[in-house]
């Protein structure tokens, strides 16, 4: 270092960059608190994008409205004898289906996002690898919230009167949001694995349809042939749907609620690390 750094009092020139001090300051990984700040910054980015591209709310807005009304009037009579008898069965089912649709969008959008140049910068910055994945998912909580409330309101408009009252409804919506968020880790993992946004979409569809339709979301499981009933009963979506039904219709925190929550935890514990690992590998 031959340059003499003259300190003139008037000009507030920043200090010279000192490599050895910089090396001494480095840390081997982000602390929990740093990671949290990073996740929130990423969530804020996702929120800004949502505000700027409201068209991505389309599925969240249209699907609950359309499906609730359509399913109620088409299947109501056949399955439960009347529309009003079917609504207590249907609304929790639609909720689960809508939440899964939002999950799918999470995976597809992550994949699209990852193909953009800015992800190169995220990778080159000293941030926890989970931040770019978890950030958007926090922002997605808003989407689950909107979708759930909208479904419920549509139900109320066409005559649904939940027996669980305000507590049941709030708890049911909360459970839906939690479940959606947890299941979204599966689709996030797919997003980090797949080659293109389109393939994420394709694979997600293949997962989503059996999960929703081979569950008790729209029909009582007892009406199905034995082998199908067996699958429906182990399908985690069935447990979420039953739990939400218990909450909405009876305001009861039953064992199903517990099972649904356990299922959520299991999904997150398995798929969050998988997603982070696959994301950090893809460099």
């Amino acid at each position, binding site marked *: 270092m031959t340059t003499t750094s003259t300190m003139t009092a008037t000009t507030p020139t*920043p200090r*010279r960059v000192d490599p050895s001090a*910089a090396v001494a300051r*480095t840390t081997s990984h982000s602390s929990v608190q*740093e990671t949290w700040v990073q996740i929130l*910054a990423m969530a804020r980015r996702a929120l800004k994008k949502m505000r700027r591209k409201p068209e991505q709310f389309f599925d969240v807005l249209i699907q609950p409205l359309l499906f609730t009304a359509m399913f109620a009037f088409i299947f109501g009579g056949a399955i439960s004898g009347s529309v009003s008898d079917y609504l207590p069965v249907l609304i929790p089912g639609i909720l689960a289906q809508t939440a899964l649709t939002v999950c799918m969008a999470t995976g597809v959008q992550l994949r699209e996002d990852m193909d*953009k140049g800015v992800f190169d910068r995220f990778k080159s*910055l*000293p941030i926890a690898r989970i931040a770019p994945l978890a950030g958007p998912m926090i922002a997605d909580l808003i989407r689950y919230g909107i979708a759930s409330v909208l479904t419920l309101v549509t139900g109320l408009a066409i005559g649904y009167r939940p027996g669980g009252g305000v507590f049941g409804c709030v708890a049911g919506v909360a459970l839906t949001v939690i479940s959606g968020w947890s299941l979204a880790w599966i689709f996030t993992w797919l997003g980090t694995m797949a080659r293109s946004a389109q393939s994420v979409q394709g694979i997600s569809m293949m997962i989503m349809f059996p999960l929703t339709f081979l569950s008790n979301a729209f029909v009582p499981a007892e009406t199905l042939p034995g082998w199908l009933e067996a699958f429906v009963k182990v399908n985690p979506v069935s447990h979420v749907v039953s739990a939400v039904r218990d909450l909405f219709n009876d305001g009861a925190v039953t064992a199903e609620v517990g099972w649904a929550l356990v299922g959520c935890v299991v999904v997150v514990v398995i798929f969050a690390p998988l997603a982070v690992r696959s994301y950090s590998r893809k*460099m």
Partner: protein
Amino acid sequence: MADLSAVRAESLVKDFGDFRAVDGIDLHVRQGEIFGVLGPNGAGKTTTLRMLATLLPIDGGHAEIFGVDVRREPHRIRQLVGVTGQYASVDEDLTARENLWLFARLQGLPGTRAKTIAGELLERFGLQEAADRPLSQFSGGMRRRLDLASSLITRPPLIFLDEPTTGLDPRTRGQMWDTIRELVTDGSTILLTTQYLDEADQLADRVAVIDRGRKVAEDTPDALKTQVGDSTLQLSLADGSDIALAANVVRRLLGEEPVLTPESGRMNIPLPDPNRAADVLIGLREAGLGISSVSVAKPTLDEVFLALTGHGADDEPQMEAAR
């Protein structure tokens, strides 16, 4: 601290399937210098930089940045290196200010500090007026500047610039050069890649020339240039069939081998001294060979390559037995 190297890379290797994009490159960048990596398209410049920036796994060899092992401590490396990639890595859906704010927050700057830093950088890079416009309305040059600004938020001691001026107009390019020089004055070390000998000449203290994943030379720009002559005489003959005769004249007068270009009747002649151009022109007239155009220019990357590797920069990697 005895070791004053910013980057020390030994026998770096990168394979993409069967294709070896980087084939045993050594780089030694000293603290406080501008080091240029010069090479044609596909030489492996970006790949080398991305490995050093922890964006690509290193398949072979060893790399240290300020003594920190790149492979073992990627998180530390990311705190030491600011990366400006070949293609702008900023968020198209956010404004310039939001981009800088986001990157600052991600690196742990408190909210208010992130705001002031973003403001300072926008001003420094002449982006204040466009600060709150969406990036889709940005020109290529503005995007590049924002990209560079984004790499400087934490004032990293080492900065990677991948072809920082490709696609910029001459004025913007000059500004970029000034900015790069300022960074070094502040104490940062710069590792940049370029396709232009001219740029390496203007900026770099030392240059490594890379070709097909290998380093073919490493020296100061001046030393590299003297290998190919200070300037080049570009000649077009009136009659293309005279080319062999003209080449003889050049050999006899200068003792240099003229480079025949793909257009017929054209040749580039390395000149050890620009004043020798007159000798060649007089020699050609005495031999009765007509000239349709003539100019004296700086040697191009193509000629450097030819001199160093024996093949032009654009040749497809055809018959290289060494592979």
